[in-house]
């Protein structure tokens, strides 16, 4: 197995004056295929480590000779947990991601030069961010892979008041999705609960509206057969297809929203889809 070089930093180049302290790593392959870098965007209450390292994605992509950029979202993994709400808004996160990939060497697409542009793989909340990033950066993004994608927005539908009441005095949460997401947010000691709730509040201010801006570049949508959050995946396929982009979908038998991430079929399909 190849082990490539590996650099990491607390990102310092700010786009809006305040520094959200995002933790960025660039994973170099042993030998480089000469293709554009791949940006990985993890899911809610996860991290680069859980979503991409432990699940085997980094080594899979390095073995495919790809250069990989990973970022911990604000309040997640090794990133800071800023106190200002603005640092958690999806639009601000997209702006920070653009700055990060630019600093890591991604350049606008140029015809005939496979080293230009950027491929993006997102998972769950990361898929929402990748969809919007692709839609708003057509000159940069070459291809996108979305894992566990949904046209709905479970985080925008999160019952923040019920969650806060539950945290204060243990009142049970009626909404099953809210209860599940809060449990997820509480499970990881490395993730800051205040930051998780700030992110949810910021997302409520900018809920996902996939029809507002859809990506035009080729798109691969992947979900587990038992992924209840991704039952709306065909709607995303249809929205992107209407913009004229090439859309492929892949359903992984037997897998759920949580465990599709380690699937070999998912990884192999992504490597092949992005390897052009």
């Amino acid at each position: 197995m190849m082990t490539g070089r590996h650099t990491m930093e607390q990102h310092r180049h700010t786009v809006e004056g305040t520094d959200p302290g995002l933790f960025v790593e660039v994973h170099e392959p042993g030998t480089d295929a000469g293709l554009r870098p791949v940006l990985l965007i993890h899911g809610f209450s996860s991290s680069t480590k859980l979503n991409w390292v432990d699940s085997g994605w980094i080594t899979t992509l390095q073995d495919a000779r790809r250069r990989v950029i990973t970022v911990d979202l604000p309040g997640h993994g090794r990133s800071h947990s800023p106190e200002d709400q603005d640092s958690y808004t999806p639009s601000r996160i997209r702006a920070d991601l653009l700055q990060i990939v630019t600093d890591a060497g991604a350049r606008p697409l140029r015809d005939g030069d496979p080293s230009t542009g950027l491929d993006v793989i997102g998972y769950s909340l990361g898929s929402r961010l990748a969809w919007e990033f692709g839609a708003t950066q057509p000159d940069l993004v070459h291809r996108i892979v979305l894992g566990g994608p949904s046209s709905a927005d479970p985080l925008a539908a999160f019952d923040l008041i019920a969650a806060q009441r539950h945290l204060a005095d243990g009142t049970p949460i009626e909404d099953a999705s809210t209860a599940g997401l809060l449990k997820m947010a509480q499970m990881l000691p490395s993730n800051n609960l205040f930051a998780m709730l700030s992110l949810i509040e910021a997302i409520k201010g900018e809920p996902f509206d996939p029809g507002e801006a859809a990506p035009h570049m080729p798109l691969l949508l992947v979900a587990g057969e038992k992924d209840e959050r991704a039952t709306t995946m065909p709607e995303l396929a249809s929205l992107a297809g209407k913009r004229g982009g090439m859309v492929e979908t892949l359903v992984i038998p037997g897998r759920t929203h949580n465990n599709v991430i380690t699937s070999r079929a998912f990884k192999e399909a992504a490597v092949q889809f992005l390897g052009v």
Partner: protein
Amino acid sequence: MAEISFPLPDLGEGLIEATVLDWLVEPGQQVERNQPIVELETTKSALELPSPQAGKVVRIHGAPGETINVGEPLIVFEVPDDTAGIVGTVPKDEAPKRRVRLSAVLDED
């Protein structure tokens, strides 16, 4: 030849068990150290375990969907006698870079 057995390692974060999603190796197969051997799911995430050992797989424990407790047998390898890591011998391999630490049943560490 000797057999060396590895239990499900401590996965951290207070996890006590994991469910097998898919085995990536099968009995009779020769595997390299750090090659992914199994996909597991915990209450927190899904992950791949890298092989703690180079050698031929003799047995694997846990069919897809079955739950294994930390410390219970996971995989057994057949290795040449002088690399078995039995108490009193020193494995000749270099220290591996591991994402999850596994230690052999017979190892003291």
